[in-house]
């Protein structure tokens, strides 16, 4: 082991630094950790020094998300005002066949290079890799985090569908902040995670969003898919969502939970393709069935309010992909990415920005490799693939996105004159 272990003794005194990937999910999940006795800071530091540190301490050909996340952690340690002897860094480890499983080790290497190997690194994964004695995810915590993410997905979807149309600007975002704070305070009291409390909260959230005064006009509807970090993190995708909304679009970003279902689901596929133990496959199938119940609860709340486009259940979305990319593609975002494109088109978001770090290996297959097939199947699809990279200039990215938007706009106007 290269860097220090996060021990049980550290749990009380140390602050865990977690780079933010998606709002409001991470801010909600933070409270779950707090509830279980951890001190957590969700990192929001930006600015040129983040990527500078990343380039300095990480191999420059590694994926952009690794450079950003590691750069953000190191920048936070160096300049964030934390006590360097009292912080631990948290980084995700997917455990799949792509480079992302190595971020944990790259962060350790980076720390060693900047003489901070005494700072413990915690791997956040669901596969029991690289354990830390002071950091254990109990099933209870998992369940609570799951609920936090379901709330997060719901808030994100509602806000995205409301923001572009609101009469009084800022109401949707204010509502997100309000609920994030409220739910956080409930989580801190170990409440609001399950059952009827959750059902009531979800209903209230939907009702409040539905009550925001809006003026629905025909807008270009754009979906964002891609490598998970690039898709969600404004730090990674140069504030893509904000840019699109400035251009007068309504943006839909698929749910975060889809990715988790996909991860669990793949274990079952592996059993069919490569043999292996029944046990894992059975357990995951059972778990998924339980999780779908919560997903249904959130969907029903949205449906009931009557004002929103409700995302398809995961299992239906998965079905869309039949005969296209095989469910065996499980590295990175794998078949899920292709399915999400189809899902977005079905939901009325035929204009899609597909984001990936430059040189992303899985996306050669499941993103760029499938665009043609998706376009042939769904003629209204209008997809642009954008690569992100420490020095990929924004002006080029925006120009390509504008081309996609120009076509979208033409189609939108065509529809308006037809109707």
């Amino acid at each position, binding site marked *: 082991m290269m860097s220090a272990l996060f021990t049980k003794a550290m749990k009380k005194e140390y602050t865990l630094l977690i780079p933010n990937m998606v709002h409001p999910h991470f801010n909600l999940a933070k409270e779950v950790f707090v509830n279980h006795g951890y001190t957590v800071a969700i990192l929001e530091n930006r600015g040129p020094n983040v990527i500078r540190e990343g380039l300095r301490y990480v191999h420059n050909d590694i994926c952009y998300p690794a450079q950003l996340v590691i750069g953000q952690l190191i920048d936070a340690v160096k300049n964030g005002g934390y006590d360097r002897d009292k912080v631990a860094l948290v980084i995700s480890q997917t455990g799949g066949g792509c480079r992302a499983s190595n971020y944990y080790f790259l962060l350790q290497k980076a720390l060693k290079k900047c003489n901070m190997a005494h700072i413990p690194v915690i791997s956040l994964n669901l596969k029991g890799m690289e354990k830390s004695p002071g950091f254990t995810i109990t099933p209870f915590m998992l369940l609570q985090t799951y609920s936090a993410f379901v709330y997060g997905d719901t808030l994100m979807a509602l806000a995205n569908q409301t923001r572009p149309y609101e009469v009084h600007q800022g109401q949707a975002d204010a509502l997100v902040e309000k609920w994030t704070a409220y739910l956080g305070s409930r989580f801190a009291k170990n409440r609001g995670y399950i059952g009827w409390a959750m059902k009531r909260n979800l209903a209230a959230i939907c009702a409040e969003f539905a009550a925001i005064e809006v003026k629905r006009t025909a807008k270009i509807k754009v979906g964002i898919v891609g490598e998970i970090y690039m898709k969600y993190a404004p730090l990674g995708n140069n504030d893509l969502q904000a840019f699109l909304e400035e251009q007068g679009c309504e943006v839909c970003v698929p749910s975060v939970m889809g990715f988790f279902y996909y991860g669990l689901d793949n274990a079952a596929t592996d059993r069919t393709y490569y043999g292996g133990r029944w046990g894992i496959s059975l357990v995951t199938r059972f778990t998924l069935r339980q999780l779908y119940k919560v997903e249904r609860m959130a969907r029903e709340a949205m449906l009931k309010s009557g004002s929103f486009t409700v995302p398809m259940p995961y299992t239906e979305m998965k079905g869309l992909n039949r005969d296209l990319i095989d469910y065996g593609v499980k590295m*990175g975002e794998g078949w899920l990415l292709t399915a999400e494109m189809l899902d977005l088109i079905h939901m009325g978001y035929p204009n899609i920005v597909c984001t990936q770090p430059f040189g992303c290996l899985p996306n050669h297959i499941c993103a760029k490799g*499938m665009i043609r097939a998706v376009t042939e199947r769904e003629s209204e699809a209008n997809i642009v693939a954008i690569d992100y990279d420490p020095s990929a*200039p924004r002006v080029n990215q925006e120009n390509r996105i504008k*081309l996609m938007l120009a076509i979208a706009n033409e189609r939108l106007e065509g529809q308006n004159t037809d109707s």
Partner: protein
Amino acid sequence: MITIGLDIGSTTMKVVALDGNGRIVHHAYQRHYSQINETAASMLKPLGDVVGGEPVAITLSGSAGMGLSQKLNLPFIQEVYATRIAVTTFLPSTDVVIELGGEDAKILFFGSNMEVRMNGTCAGGTGSFIDQMASLLNVDSSAIDSLAKKATQRYSIASRCGVFAKSDVQPLLNQGAAKSDIALSILHSVANQTVAGLAQGRPIKGQVVYLGGPLTFLPSLRRVFDEVLETEGTCPDHSLYFVAIGAALYPSQRSITLGDVVARLMRPGGAKTFTSIAPLFASRQEYEHFAARHRREALIECDPASYVGEAFLGVDAGSTTVKAVVIGGEGELLYSQYGDNNGNAVEFVSNLITTFETTYRDITLAKACSTGYGELLIKSAFDFEYSIVETMAHYLSANAFLEGVDFIIDIGGQDIKCFKIADGVIDDIFLNEACSSGCGSFLQTFSNALGYTPEEAARLALTAQNPVDLGSRCTVFMNSSVKQAQKDGATVADIFAGLAISVVKNALYKVIRSTDPALLGSKIVVQGGTFLNDAVLRAFEMELNADVVRPAQAGLMGAYGCALHARSEHRRAPRQRTTLTAEELKSFTHRSRTLHCKGCTNACLLTITTFDHDRRLVSGNKCDRIVDPASFINDPQTLNLYAFKQQYLASFKANKGKRGRIGLPFQLSFYEQLPFWHTLFSTLGFEVVTSPPSSWDLYLSGQSTIPSDTVCYPAKLMHGHIEALVREGIDTIFYPCSSYNIDEKKGDNHFNCPVVAYYPEVLKHNVPALKDGSVRFISDYLSLASKGFLPKRLLKILSPYYDITLAEMRFAASEGYEALEAYQQAIRRQGEVVIANARMRGWPIIVLSGRPYHIDGEVNHGIDSLLLQYGAAVLSEDAVAHHTVKTKQQVLNQWTYHARMYDAARWVVLQEDAHLVQLISFGCGLDAVTSDEIRDILHHRGKIYTQIKIDEIANLGAVKIRIRSLLAALKEEG
């Protein structure tokens, strides 16, 4: 109302005015040199005659128009979209538009299924690429056209980006290939790039229209496109102006007067929004101090007019410049010359020798030595006594300058070379990858583009107040970053300073991969023409936070090292001078011709240059069979495991079978698993047809169906292999997907990389013959890892098409596993043979560590035989990996192929005479993980780490330097 379209591209600006009936009443075209506002104002003013004081509608377009439209509050239309509007209006019967611009390439498909495509961020093959190539040939861009018309043959030039192509073009120039042939080859690479990058499986046919600058100005380029597309396209009137026309056609409600627009254009810019870094000098004083310190570092010069006796000539024929020095017996500098080689280094040296010898008759040039790209050219042309690899030349000079130097960095026109010195021996070598050449020619290209000489640019950079933070990436990216910075209000000085800093960062963080510059060394010498730029020097010292030594003759150090070598060799082992004298040069002749070698099926295109009828230089050869038969090894498999593996795999031939034919595309996973699958299917009674060996032509045949232009070359080749099988008439192709590889129990997991695992998915959905079902493509998921499960799985996959029993399948699979095992055992046994032979000959052993598919000659470009030529035995990683036991690595060791590479590295460090060279496919993201880890393993035990990045580039120039430097360093180590 008059409507005006203003198209502001990356290098030029176009304006078109249409009257109410859509007729063009005015059009103009101008380069803008990034002075966007000024140029726009000056181009709009003449329109006053057309419109008078009437209000007009103006729409902006083009990559640089976006920012301006915001500033002026005028409508903007995306340029590809504008082209579409213009084409639909004026040329409605068009099927496909190909438009090349300064930095963009676009294809538009019309008809019921409209599609528009633009090149991604990593793609050359555009106007500025042609400009870059033209300046390399030292001709005007338009001359490329007339040159190409005279061409008689074609070379293969990498088309991905300018930097790649440059490394193909430069050696051709140095070898004396005809400029006309190179010009044609450049145009072909542009066409190939466009087709490969943008067609993405959609056939380009019907009425094709060519638009944009390069296709307008270069009729030859249009002809090349016609040839590649097998069609006849047209270039309409106003082909430069379609974007501007489309913009003018774009409906806009807003009207404005010209005067207003011009006034807005001339309004001073807003606040600076680009990211800037600290200026190079805080004060004038600081600069004076810096300049004074460096002025002291210079070679001792001596007036040749007063010198009598022996002198030594050193010539460094670099990629863009030729440097020559003459030194006296004490190492004093008598004479030097530094000039552009303009593609003709021979003439330069010839003039130099003649001038020197006729002017200074009291000096005899005792010996001469050459180095650099043109090392062999100059040596054979003038019959020099010696030549050395350039890294060695730089070390010799640096050490003469600063005894005990422990780090040297040389940034030349096209290369960055850095070496660490320990105990008087080159300990580690870093050379830039073909993809990150942020070097001298890079700075020069930018200063020219902005209308300054490199010297002016350097001076300006020193005065910059807010240098732009441009990061450290390749030229293609940098172009756009510069554009963005300008848009954001950076001054030219800020940009030049930013570029100088980016060159330094590129060298430190991309080439040397240093994290703590303080660890480089304590005695650092910087050399190479680029360091004569004070801004670069200063940026380097700032980044290092240390003082370094820059000889005033920084650009001459390679040549100086050569001269020193000539002097010491002359003293060590005196021999007759052979270098041509001024007298002999009077009758000097040289003539080149090209022909295809008949030595083997490779049929290398050889350039043979003959000097004075008796000295011959052959280049373009991949082996020495013809060139140097004496050292050619006839049975390479005894010393080269790559050759052995190739032979072994080639022995799997098709046998007639009752179940019909089944095709296997021979790349990626099949490179290792061929014995398994071939045996399995043959046992089942299939006639197994393997696609032919990879070749450039095979690649071209499949390139139009590649959807992602940044995927690795082996994957791209797969499209060609499928195409070859289809053309062969195979109706069933078997190529399974597989998340998991063989489990050798040596790592944390046994994954394939995503590309190896799932590439069949890409083929299935992008290759027309597989999509439309005319060829059956079996690409289901399976893994060889579980011997028990595989037959069942395979049966399930094949049973819809064939009637096979489980017993048959089990038997066939066990035969397959046996064949695979036999192959792996054979590799290991042959590994022992190679090691024994190498030790008998006293040769160093190089583990050429890559993936199984790197033994494909089209992928490795013959690097294995090159090593053999240089007297090194070649092993593959899988020949030695089994010697080491499972160990925890400092990274997640989860890929089967990579685990072998770590294990091979751990074997190498235990052998005195073994070394490792890692092959990395361009675009292989996983190697960002493996290369650092392998470097660590080797360094930990004091071994030199060498990596070679390979792609579709066929030129081995940079590879040769790397290998020769490694071998020279090993020799020094003794």
